[in-house]
């Protein structure tokens, strides 16, 4: 099962514990002062389902302790939906018969100015896999445009070389998100049918290259639904622990995307329901108390409201998953996935305030950029 996965990430030795832990083990894990990967395995086990309320309480207190009564906000901007990738689960995959587009310079400026006017100060720029139309020079140009307007610019694009990451960092990019999708090498190969994304090991290595290239924070995650979520969650945790030892000045955040309905109609082979998703997030909060845990608009308003501040410390809002979409007011069509929470910024912030949480738009300053 674990063949092909790097030894320092392999969750193999903890899988039995994650399967057979007892309620007694769960109580011990909940009481651990410095939870380890073993405690995570226990909290991911079926036995922990009976301790959901205790896990939520612990997650609430740890989130409040480390992040206060605040939620950091960011917004995604899709720069392009051209894609060379063959991901079976993605609405933007190269074989989907959808009209393709990318933002030209004028449109990008219009979109960024519209986002700025919505109040956001942290922007996440997204593309598909590397293409002629949306390759490195395209991303670099958009990072430059965004850095003129936002204090915090981050990317979620195709994996790059350390030199490319360095050039983006010098242009004002602070963060890089890249999800491994799954650490299971067999399922990874099946899910990524062609193209550069077939390079499983190269993708695992990308966060290291980004940090070596000067990025200050990386966002990691797996696509829940693709493979055994317990295997992937444990591998993800070990990956972060491993990276942290080398990059001790860097920030790490974790996202929990679930496969959503999209063009192509892929049905997840390991569906994760909301109860299990909540437990995975709380288990991460308990074992990784000081990292941002991120929840996007893939999830429903009710779920997002319940998780805000209870494990989750950072959220997107008012998102479009189409290319652009902020400058005009038309409804979203042909997005990468269906947005599940389509509330506007004001309504979302109002919900946070009702829950005693302060929405924080600006939580970093461009004065800290490497080239400022």
């Amino acid at each position, binding site marked *: 099962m674990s063949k092909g996965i790097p030894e320092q990430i392999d969750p193999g030795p903890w899988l039995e514990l994650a399967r057979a832990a007892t309620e007694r083990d769960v109580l011990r894990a909940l009481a651990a002062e410095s939870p380890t990967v073993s405690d995570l395995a226990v909290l991911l086990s079926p036995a922990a389902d009976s301790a959901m309320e205790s896990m939520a309480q612990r997650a609430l207190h740890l989130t*409040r*302790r*480390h*992040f*206060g*009564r*605040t939620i950091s906000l960011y917004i995604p901007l899709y720069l392009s939906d051209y894609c060379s990738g063959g991901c079976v689960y993605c609405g933007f995959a190269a074989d989907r018969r959808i009209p393709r587009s990318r933002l030209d310079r004028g449109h990008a400026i219009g979109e960024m100015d519209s986002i*700025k006017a919505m*109040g956001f*100060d942290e922007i996440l720029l997204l593309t598909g896999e590397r293409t002629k139309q949306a390759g490195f020079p395209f991303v670099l140009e958009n990072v430059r445009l965004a850095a003129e307007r936002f*204090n915090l610019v981050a990317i979620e694009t195709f994996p790059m070389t350390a030199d490319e990451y360095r050039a983006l960092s010098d242009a004002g990019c602070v963060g890089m998100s890249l999800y491994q999708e799954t650490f299971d090498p067999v399922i990874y190969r099946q899910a990524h049918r062609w193209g550069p994304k077939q390079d499983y090991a190269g993708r695992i290595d990308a966060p290291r290259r980004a940090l070596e290239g000067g990025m*200050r*924070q990386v966002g990691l995650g797996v696509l829940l639904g693709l493979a055994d979520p317990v295997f992937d969650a444990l591998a993800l945790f070990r990956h972060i622990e491993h990276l*942290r030892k080398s990059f*001790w*000045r*860097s*920030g*790490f955040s974790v996202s929990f995307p679930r496969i959503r309905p999209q063009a192509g109609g892929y049905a997840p082979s390991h569906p994760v329901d909301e109860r299990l998703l909540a437990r995975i997030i709380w288990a991460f909060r308990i074992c990784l108390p*000081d*990292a941002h845990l991120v929840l996007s608009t893939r999830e429903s308003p009710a779920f997002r409201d319940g998780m805000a501040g209870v494990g989750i410390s950072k959220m997107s809002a008012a998102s479009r998953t189409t290319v652009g979409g902020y400058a005009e007011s038309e409804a979203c069509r042909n997005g990468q996935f269906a947005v599940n929470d389509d509330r506007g910024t004001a309504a979302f912030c109002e919900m946070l*305030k009702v829950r*005693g*949480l*302060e*929405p*924080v*738009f*600006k*939580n*970093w*300053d461009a*004065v*800290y950029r490497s080239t*400022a």
Partner: protein
Amino acid sequence: MRDPLRLGTGTFQSRLLLGTGKFSSPAAMLKAVRASGAQLVTVALRRFNREQASDDLFGPLSSIAGLTLVPNTSGALNAREAIRAAQLGRELSGSPYTKLEIHPNPHHLMPDPIETFEAARVLVAEGFAVLPYIMADPVLAKRLEDLGCAAVMPLAAGIGTGKGLTTRDLLGLIVRNSRVPVIVDAGLRSPSEAAAAMELGCDAVLVNSAVAAAEDPASMAGAFKLAVRAGRSARLAGIMPVSECAVATSPLTSFLSACNPAQP
């Protein structure tokens, strides 16, 4: 003014400093600041938002009369970044104070002594009243004092941990040798710990999470205000020494009084 805290060229009656992050709203933060009686509050430069008033912490604080703002450099990874942040903070706030925070690991937030020392050297030369956040390291404290820092701010425990006075013995060494104010910064959870820090001889206490994460932040701010006052009063009153056992009669030495005095 009786027993003021002298910090740089300023004097302050309150010995409680408040951090302003982590509150549920600017209104809740302002209520806590008022209840604390603090005259010095620190604001992260990254929370200055000149473009959106509702997201800005600096604006509302600058409207409170009698409050001195201390911009902090939280977010800086090294001396170069902290120096730039301090300069920008002074430009925006007009305050002569800078709380120098360089904690390059964003997860445990422990201060980097090497970068902090280097930044302090530059900022002192530029005329800042520098308040460096440091480990409870008695040698580093003296080195920063020698540079001309206006105070030292050793930690009691990690930021936001609420573990209390875990560095008590080291704080004691710093207090005993310091000629500049010692302000305990970070790690306190309850007012009794703040009182204990003051009894130990610290000159002031800074709290943020302990107030912001309390169920009722404003009431907790008021409780810290009283605790800091009580601790300071106790320190000035002279606390009786600790003894391992009861001190009763002197059974082993009483025979000495019965001896005849020595003859010349």
